[in-house]
């Protein structure tokens, strides 16, 4: 966790890259002809996931494959940390870039461990180091090395195969990963899980990732940046998912992201993006008159009963507060829905709509109540249009947004990682 | 073969052999031998088809007994025709009195016929099975879903789609039988092998070569006709993207494409 981001990531820059297919000679049995690319210029900052999304034949896969020179551009340059990829030795270039494809392409005649150690073997690591690395990576992607290392790819499920494909691409810790519809061949439930696992992994690894998909939802979920391609190999819009959803640059982009883009934005914003509003809280034994005063002064009529450590216990409805005396725990009857800073507004909204009192309490890792969230808050945020996060994963932003709260930025960061698994991951 | 003057001389004597009218006449002439060769080949392939096609269709459609049948067919492949023919000779001779056929048949025709039939069965059986198995299961499901009977599924879905592969097996069988029936001459059966065996006995290499040309030519000729048949019987929708010249397919005929790995 202490290993900060940008440990080994590179900037990838497309500089007026064009690929034309004038008279293609198609090899028999090869994939359908790839899409052309027309004067592509974009920069992927180090450590970010950039999703190339668009309809089929729009040139997104071609763009990806020009980075590791499976396809050579007709004109223009691709710069990796400022160095023209075209000038590098192609074999050495490919070995320094992780590559994951939809059908995975695991070698069926090699064990899982051998597959993972492919590039280490190619670049001449010792057998011992290869084995160590394979074990390490299998553990990283959540497959027990002792159990899975000796298996053959045919003995894995689709999801396991995809994970092994990712592990294989990570083997020599490449600064760049190219992922071509990596989760396209598995069912939606497994895909969702793999996406979440990968996002969690990326928080630690902070690679520069180019990710191709035709699925706009996946693009919005996975991308720090999204490049929407349209037919003819042109980029229709390049920006953060929020920007693209809030302000589609053209009719094409608006149609491509879909009519429900307002709802899609809910999935992009998180509870942490809302302004902090401390709830009116009381403890057992507090003076009732004082509590009444506090409730009256607050915009939300319910009082939150908390314990000594400020952990939420339940709502106390205004009409249950007696005229005098002290607060008892029996006064609180409704348990508030609990969310955290990483919960998406989509999930938070869903939870609140289901609850008796349509408000939720955001807690930190210690369980301390941090902020009150209401349905109105969510609606207001969405109405404000562009307001929202640029990148959901940025640690320093979290710290800034949380300046009013108690815990330090480090604590929040830890909470984010620990709870990422829970939020938005219905399967696990 | 192409050995300078030797080759040229051979060419001359070959032309002389083929233009000699004596070689084209009577019971030892080329036409008679050709007919004998065709006769034994078609009888053998015919009987093999009668046996192998229904069995192949059954196991291909139902999937039942497939392993057994394919294994038996592969055992058949392992039997050397020459060895089988000779081994059958004393047996057929011995059986003649009991079964009441002319012992002369047991000395020549029957051993050759039996070994050629056995040679032809495996490719027809295996290809019929493989062809049917290669038909997309979804199509059969669709047929069943539309209420087709099993027989209708077999005849109007599976067989038409599998027909190129099924006929491919038939071609392989015919080609092998025509090339191999040459050995019948060893048992003083006629056929084009006569020229080769007699040439061998007389050290007449011109005649050996002429015989080889005749057998190869016959095999290729028959195969070419079967290739045209195969094309004609292939449903038009499946013909797309296949080579148009039959000779390209001829080259692919002798070994079934999808020999199941049993």
């Amino acid at each position, binding site marked *: 966790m202490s290993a900060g981001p940008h440990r080994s990531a590179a900037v990838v820059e497309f500089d007026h890259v064009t690929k034309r297919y004038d008279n293609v000679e198609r090899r*028999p049995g*090869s994939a359908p002809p790839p899409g052309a690319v027309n004067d592509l210029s974009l920069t992927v900052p180090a450590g970010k996931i950039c999703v190339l999304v668009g309809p089929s034949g729009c040139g997104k896969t071609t763009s990806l494959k020009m980075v*590791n020179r*499976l396809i050579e551009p007709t004109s223009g340059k691709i710069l990796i940390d400022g160095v023209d990829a075209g000038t590098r030795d*192609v074999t*050495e*270039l*490919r*070995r320094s870039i992780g*590559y994951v*494809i939809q*059908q*995975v*392409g695991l*070698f*069926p*005649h*090699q064990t899982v461990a051998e597959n993972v150690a492919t*590039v280490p073997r190619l670049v001449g690591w010792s057998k011992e180091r290869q084995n160590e690395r394979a074990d390490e990576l299998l553990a990283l992607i959540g497959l027990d090395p002792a159990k899975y290392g000796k298996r*053959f790819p*045919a*003995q894995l499920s689709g999801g396991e195969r995809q994970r092994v494909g990712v592990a*294989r691409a990570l083997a020599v810790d490449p600064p760049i990963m190219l992922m071509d519809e990596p989760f396209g061949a598995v069912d939606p439930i497994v895909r969702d899980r793999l996406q979440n696992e990968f996002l969690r992994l990326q928080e630690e690894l902070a690679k520069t990732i180019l990710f191709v998909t035709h699925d706009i939802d996946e693009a919005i979920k996975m991308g720090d940046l999204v490049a929407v391609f349209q037919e003819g190999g042109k980029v229709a819009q390049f920006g953060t998912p929020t920007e693209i959803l809030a302000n589609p640059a053209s009719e094409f982009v608006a149609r491509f992201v879909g009519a429900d883009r307002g709802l899609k934005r809910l999935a992009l914003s998180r509870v942490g993006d809302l302004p902090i509003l401390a709830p009116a809280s009381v403890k057992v034994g507090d003076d009732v008159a004082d509590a009444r005063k506090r409730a009256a002064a607050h915009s939300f009529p319910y009082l939150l009963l908390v314990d000594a450590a400020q952990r939420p216990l339940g709502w106390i409805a205004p009409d249950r507060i007696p005229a005098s005396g002290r607060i008892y725990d029996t006064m609180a009857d409704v348990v508030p829905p609990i969310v955290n800073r990483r919960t998406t507004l989509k999930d938070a909204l869903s939870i609140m709509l289901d609850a008796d009192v349509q408000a939720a309490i955001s807690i930190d890792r210690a369980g301390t109540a941090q902020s009150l969230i209401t349905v109105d808050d969510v609606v207001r945020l969405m109405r404000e249009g562009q307001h929202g996060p640029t990148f959901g994963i940025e640690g320093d932003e979290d710290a800034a947004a949380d300046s009013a709260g108690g815990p330090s930025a480090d604590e929040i960061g830890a909470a984010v990682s620990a709870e990422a698994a829970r939020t938005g991951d219905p399967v696990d | 073969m192409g050995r300078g003057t030797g080759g040229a001389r051979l060419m001359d004597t070959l032309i002389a052999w083929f233009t000699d009218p004596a070689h084209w006449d009577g019971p030892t002439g080329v036409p008679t031998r050709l007919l004998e060769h065709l006769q034994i080949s078609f009888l053998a392939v015919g009987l093999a088809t009668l046996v192998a096609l229904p069995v192949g269709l059954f196991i291909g459609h139902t999937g039942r007994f497939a392993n057994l049948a394919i294994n038996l067919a*592969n*055992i058949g492949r*392992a*039997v*050397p025709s*020459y*060895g*089988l023919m*000779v*081994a059958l*000779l*004393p*047996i057929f001779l*011995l059986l003649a009195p009991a079964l009441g056929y002319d012992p002369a048949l047991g000395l020549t025709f029957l051993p050759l016929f039996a070994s050629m039939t056995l040679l032809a069965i495996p490719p027809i059986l295996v290809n019929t099975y493989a062809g049917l198995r290669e038909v997309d299961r979804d199509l059969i499901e669709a047929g069943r879903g539309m209420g087709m009977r099993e027989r209708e599924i077999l005849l109007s879905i599976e067989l038409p789609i599998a027909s190129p592969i099924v006929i491919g097996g038939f071609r392989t069988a015919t080609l092998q039988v025509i*090339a191999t029936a*040459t*050995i019948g001459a*060893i048992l003083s059966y006629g056929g084009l092998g006569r020229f*080769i*065996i007699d040439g*061998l006995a007389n*050290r007449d*290499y011109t005649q*050996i*070569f002429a*015989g*080889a040309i005749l*057998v*190869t030519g016959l095999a290729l000729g028959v195969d070419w006709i079967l290739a045209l048949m195969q094309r004609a019987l292939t449903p038009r929708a499946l013909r797309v993207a296949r080579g148009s010249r039959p000779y*390209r397919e*001829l*080259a*692919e*005929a*002798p*070994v079934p494409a999808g*020999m199941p790995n049993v």
Partner: protein
Amino acid sequence: MEGQQLIDWSWIGDHLDDILVRTLQHLELTIIPIVLGFIISLILAVWVTRQPRVYAPLTATTGLLYTIPSIAAFAFLRPIFGLSLITAIIPLTTYTLLILVRNNVAGLQSVPADVLEAAEGMGYTRAQRLRRVELPLAVPLMITGIRLAVVTTIGLATVASILGDSFGGLGQFITEGLQTFFPTKMILGGAMSVILAFVSDFLLIRVEHRLTPWAAARAARA
């Protein structure tokens, strides 16, 4: 023929060493063409994967060679190479090519496109890809081809005995039996070559399983 037994077991008992010698000769007649044919066809198959255009003329040629009757081929080479092993080896090697080229090509082509793409994307050189990915994955179909070629060659090698006894093999029993009309030898030659074919086939299946443990995993799943 009357009264004569079909198989004279005591003759077989007396000639066990003969049978062994003939069997070993037959193995020689089989293994040499298979090894030569495999090397040639592997080179040709790699050529085909690099240059798909050559496949059609190549199979047309091997197909044409396959239709030449074996007796004629043996007989014809005799004046050139005499009654030497070469006379038998050349046609037998030639006959293996049709099967082996086809199956070696099919084997190399059976490598899934995604596996090739992954290999290329990870920076395999062409030679590394051939040696570590394409050839290992082609093994099952290659061995199927070898099995078929071995069985065919064992059968064809019996015919070489018609030329006379110099390299022998089990066909020698067949031909001698026919010449002297001795049914025991006639049946023995055929039966022994069938047994040899079965044993070879069985051993090759074992070799295949040994070489491709991963294929069993795949088959178990399918």
